[in-house]
Structures are given as structure tokens and as C-alpha cells.
């Protein structure tokens, strides 16, 4: 079975990687000013997973994420102004100031709302895929989650159901080895996550170096099979690394639970820099300039947007 995978456009890949990195750095810069009214879980260091997986997606494909989902939101093309405005608690935010950083959503770009409760969005992604399978237009759902979510019972319930019904779902585990501060060694009896997943009849792949091109290729192949109905769900485990603290913006290597050497090893393999290095310098700097403009405009938009009317407190409790 040969499946045509679109050629890599390094400019697009770099634009997304750079946008996420710089947007997160700007959030970290603004954060101490207290203008951002929401606890942030930054994706710095983990950009390659979202960008690699989302690159082969169609605009009408669906993604679901977690409380650490600034990256997947931006990688799927979520509205950047609405993201910043949401962090500022403004009426123009993607959830109109009622969600915050942990509950990003952009249904215009098929980004399902994210959740603070680990594992919770996985079955919701599966439920969306039930509807897509019935629709039959070749759309797929990507469920992003972390290594911690694979410890939740709902993860296995979801794998089983997706496999049983051959649903068009790509499961993507962003394994950063940490649940808040607790390392995987204290949480997993064995490291054979892919083997565990394969017992459900779901093909599972592992990318241990965070190589955005490998991630993209695996995602593209899995998705292509799902679109035609040739294959059911698939799973990719991507090793990655959280450069900043769990929540907030600090580098927390002096807190004693991990070493800076670890960071340095991952930084030597920084996918943002590596993909940027593949571009012609002029092209690279024009992309970087465009990214800076976009972020600056988003921040300006957030700062100038109004807060919600106090009456908004009690709207949207019920629909209809």
C-alpha cells in the first residue's frame, strides 16, 4: 500500500515552530506584569510534536488537546489574537474570557476545547470521530495528550472503543517524562507504552528524538490510511521535553527534581533551530519578521480589547 504524502514545505514548518516558540516567550515576558490573568502551561521545547502532526492535516480535520495546548492550538491554525485575548481575560478571547489558558477552543478551526483534568479530552475526541465516521468525508481527529494521561483508565477505555469501531483517530502522546514534577520512573511499571497500545490492534510508533520530520511522516501516513477508510486508529508516542516549569514561566532546574544537563541535551536537538537552519537566511529572517508582527498585533489586540460585561457571568450557563 503506497500513500502519497505531500512534500515538506520547510517554510511552513518553520513558520509554525517559530510562531509557537516566540508566542510562548512573549507570554513569559508579559506574565510578570500580571496582565495575563490565567495560569499558563508553556509548550516551549515541545513545539515539534504539534507542528509535525498538524502539518498534514486538512483545515476541517479536528484536534483535541490538554491544558498545555498553546502549541497545538497555534499549530492547527487557531486564531492568535483570540488566544492572547483569552489569556488576558478579554471579551474577544477564544472563549470570551470564560476559559483561560487551560480551556482554549477554536471551533472555526476545529480545535476542540481543552481541559485541565488529565485524560478527559481523549474520549471526547473519540466521540467527535464517531460523528466523522458517520459523515464519511475522510476527516480525521487527532487526540493530543501527555504521558500522564496514559495512566488514566479512560485512556485504555478510549483505545478499546476507537479500535473496536475503527474510528479515524490519531492518538499522539507527548511524552515529556513528567507529571507535574513526578518522573516517569516513579509512575510506570514498564516503559513499553507502544506495546500496551498494540495489544488493542492499534499500530503504534515511537519517535524518541522529537524529529519534526519523522513525526510529520508518521502522522501523514496514519492519517492518509484513515481518510480512505483503509485503516482505523493509530498511535504515536513522541518523546519531548518541557523546557520551563509545569505551570508558570520559570526555568526550574534549581528546584532539584531535574538537571540542566538534561535541558542542554534537548536544546542541542532544538527542532525550531534545526528547521530554521535549513532555510535560506533571507527567507528565514523574513519569516521571523512576519511572526514578530503577527504576535505584536495579537498582543496589541488583547491589550486594547474590552473585558467582558459583568452580566456575562451568567450567560452561557445553558445553551438555547
Amino acid at each position: 500500500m503506497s500513500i502519497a504524502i505531500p512534500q515538506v514545505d520547510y517554510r511552513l514548518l518553520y513558520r509554525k515552530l517559530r510562531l509557537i516558540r516566540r508566542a510562548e516567550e512573549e507570554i513569559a515576558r508579559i506574565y510578570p506584569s500580571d496582565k495575563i490573568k490565567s495560569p499558563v502551561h508553556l509548550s516551549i521545547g515541545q513545539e515539534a510534536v504539534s507542528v509535525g502532526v498538524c502539518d498534514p492535516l486538512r483545515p476541517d480535520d479536528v484536534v483535541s488537546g490538554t491544558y498545555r495546548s498553546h502549541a497545538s492550538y497555534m499549530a492547527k491554525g487557531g486564531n492568535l489574537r483570540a488566544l492572547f485575548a483569552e489569556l488576558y481575560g478579554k471579551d474577544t478571547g477564544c472563549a470570551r474570557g470564560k476559559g483561560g489558558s487551560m480551556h482554549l477552543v477554536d471551533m472555526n478551526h476545529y480545535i476542540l476545547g481543552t481541559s485541565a483534568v488529565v485524560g478527559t479530552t481523549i474520549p471526547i475526541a473519540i466521540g467527535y470521530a464517531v460523528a466523522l465516521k458517520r459523515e464519511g468525508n475522510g476527516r480525521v481527529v487527532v487526540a493530543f495528550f501527555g504521558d500522564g494521561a496514559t495512566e488514566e483508565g479512560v485512556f485504555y477505555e478510549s483505545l478499546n472503543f476507537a479500535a473496536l469501531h475503527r474510528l479515524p483517530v490519531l492518538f499522539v502522546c507527548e511524552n515529556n517524562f513528567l507529571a507535574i514534577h513526578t518522573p516517569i520512573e516513579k509512575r510506570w511499571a514498564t516503559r513499553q507504552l507502544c506495546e500496551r497500545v498494540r495489544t488493542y490492534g492499534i499500530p503504534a510508533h515511537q519517535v524518541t528524538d522529537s524529529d519534526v520530520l519523522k513525526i510529520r511522516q508518521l502522522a501523514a501516513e496514519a492519517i492518509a490510511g484513515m481518510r480512505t477508510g483503509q485503516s482505523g486508529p493509530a498511535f504515536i508516542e513522541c518523546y519531548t521535553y518541557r523546557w520551563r516549569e509545569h505551570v508558570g514561566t520559570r526555568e526550574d532546574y534549581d528546584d532539584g527534581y531535574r538537571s540542566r544537563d538534561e535541558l542542554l541535551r534537548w536544546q542541542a536537538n532544538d527542532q525550531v533551530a534545526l528547521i530554521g537552519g535549513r532555510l535560506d537566511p533571507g527567507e528565514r529572517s523574513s519569516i521571523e519578521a512576519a511572526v514578530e508582527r503577527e504576535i505584536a498585533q495579537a498582543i496589541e489586540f488583547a491589550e486594547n480589547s474590552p473585558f467582558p460585561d459583568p452580566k456575562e457571568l451568567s450567560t452561557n450557563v445553558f445553551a438555547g
Partner: protein
Amino acid sequence: MYSPDKNGSDSQRLLRYVDALREGVANEMERDPRVFVFGLDVDDHKAIQGSTRGLQQQFGRDRVFNTPLSEDAMTGIAIGAAIAGLRPIHVHIRMDFLMLCMNQLVNMASKAHYMYGGTVRVPMVVRSMIGKSWGQGAQHSQGLHALFMHIPGLKVVAPSNAHDAKGCMIAAIRDDNPVIFVEHRLLYPTEAFVPEEPFTVEPGHARVCTQGRDITVVGVSNMLVECLRAHELLAEVGIQAEVIDPIWLAPLDIDTILQSVRKTGRLLVVDNAWTNCGASAEIISRVAEQTWQQPVQMARMGFAPTTCPPSPVLEQEFYPNPAKIAARVHQIVQPEVSWEPDKERAALAYQLQFRGPF
């Protein structure tokens, strides 16, 4: 037999509660291709005590299907399907199993519309059945509706008769919000006049079942039936109880209850659940907040504050029944006179028709 519709519409057709549930779902599935039914055992030979019988044959396996024993994920799947535009009905054969769905119901279903800024809707119905008698015991008999009443964004309904079972089911399916649909096993065989055509019993509307001047009695779910039986016992000694069925617990029609209480000056709430922090506590609080200018005697009854025991002797002590309710009402209305209903008469009023097993 209690039938709210007997003088209302021209319907002369008697239908059992269980068949009314099924008919309501079938009507909506015919009307709206987005509606689907899923849950453990919905397509087996027992068909959730008959309440899903024939639906798969009529609507196909894509719209009526069994599930793994994965209540947590299945609830999330209902939410995801609802966000995608479908209208799921998730069926649980006992309400106790909803404890495995709490994260999805409380953290996601109830909040999604709000915390995603109104950009998504979660139109889903969660059917759940409360068991009672013949040894249902600790984990097959709980009335847990108050847990859900506590959560903004969830609607909760507990129809007490076949007419409302159909009307509430259709209203719940058409609602754009998650609805916890509370059924009671002992109500399944009870009959009422039910129109054949689709109709709704809308959220937020209670029903005054009997007119009375002496006391307002609110009965929840199966306890409404027990209150109506108590009403008959009380009528024989000249006490007129105004029995009210809240039908929808969230949103709760407190105005209808208040209007009655302002007339009678007395209120007894009988819940099919524990009283502590329950629906009875909520109803009495709301009445108290609104009637501070007028003295109102208020009381409540519910499950004994224990785990439900299976032994029939203990179980009988656990539940309010018509005799206990009537005695309590009498005590409130005429405290100076000691009275208990005649035991034989009370036994006739009590529901003797049910035999297990389930």
C-alpha cells in the same frame, strides 16, 4: 393509577412508563437522524427492561448500539459526538453507575458551553434508573439526582408517570444541554394516558397533581406516587393535601411550590433520596428564603441516613411509604391529635403489585 393527562387531552390510550420511554425515543429518532442511543445492553434480549426494545431493528446498528463497560469514556464519547452535532442518548441500567461518569459530566458536559465561550453545545441525554426493593441493596437503589442538581449547566428530570416519561424524554432530547434523566424501576409497569403523537413536558414546570388547602406535599420521582397514596389516606380523615410533582429538578419550578405554600402555610417534601444536602434541602431552603414574612411549617422525608439494606425488614424501614407520609402530614396539620392510618388500609395503598427479580 395516576395520570396527569386524563382530563387534559383527548388521549384515551393507556401506556406503561417503560413503553412511554421507548416511544418518546423512537418518535425523536424518526424525526431527527442525529439522535442515537448507546449503552451497555441496549440491544440485548432484555433491552433495558424493554425500554429500548425494537429500536435497533427500527433504526439500525449505527444508531442503536451496545458499548464496552467503560462508563467514563462512553460519557466522553457522548459529549464529543454532541459537540460534533449529534444528539446522543446514553443509557445506564442503574443510576449508581453514573459515579463512573462524574468527571465527564461534572467537568466537561456541564461546563463546555460556558468555558468554551458559547462556541459549543452538548445536547445529550443520560438515562439512568433507580432500583428499589427485592434486595437491590446498597449499589442498585441510590437516588443521586441531588449531586447533579448542584452543578450549573446540567438539567435534571425525574418523571413520575408514563405521560411525563414520554414528554420529558422528548423535551430532553430536543434540549441543547446535557440532561440527567432519572427513571425509577418501580414506575416502569405503571400506566397513564399518553398521547400517541410527540409532545414535550418542558423543563422548569412543576405540576399541581391534587388541589388541597391544608398542606403542600412535594414528591420526587417514585415518592410522588407514594405521596398520592398518602393523599388518599389523608382524604379519608378530612385532610386535603396539595400534592405537587416538580418533574424537573433542574431547572426547578419553585414558583409553583411557593404559590401553593403561601396558600397552605405548610410544606412537606418527600424525596426519593437522602435528605442531607438533597433535593428536599434545596426546595425547603428556597421556600424559606421567599416566605420569611409568613410563618410556614416545613418538614421533609427521604431515605433513612444509612446505606440501603437488602433484607426486606430493614428495607421497609429505609424508605418513606404512604402510611409514614400520611402520619407525618397528620402530625404537621393536626399536631394535637394522634393518628396513624389503619394498617390494612395503608397496606392496600402500598405498592404490592411488584415482584422481583429484575
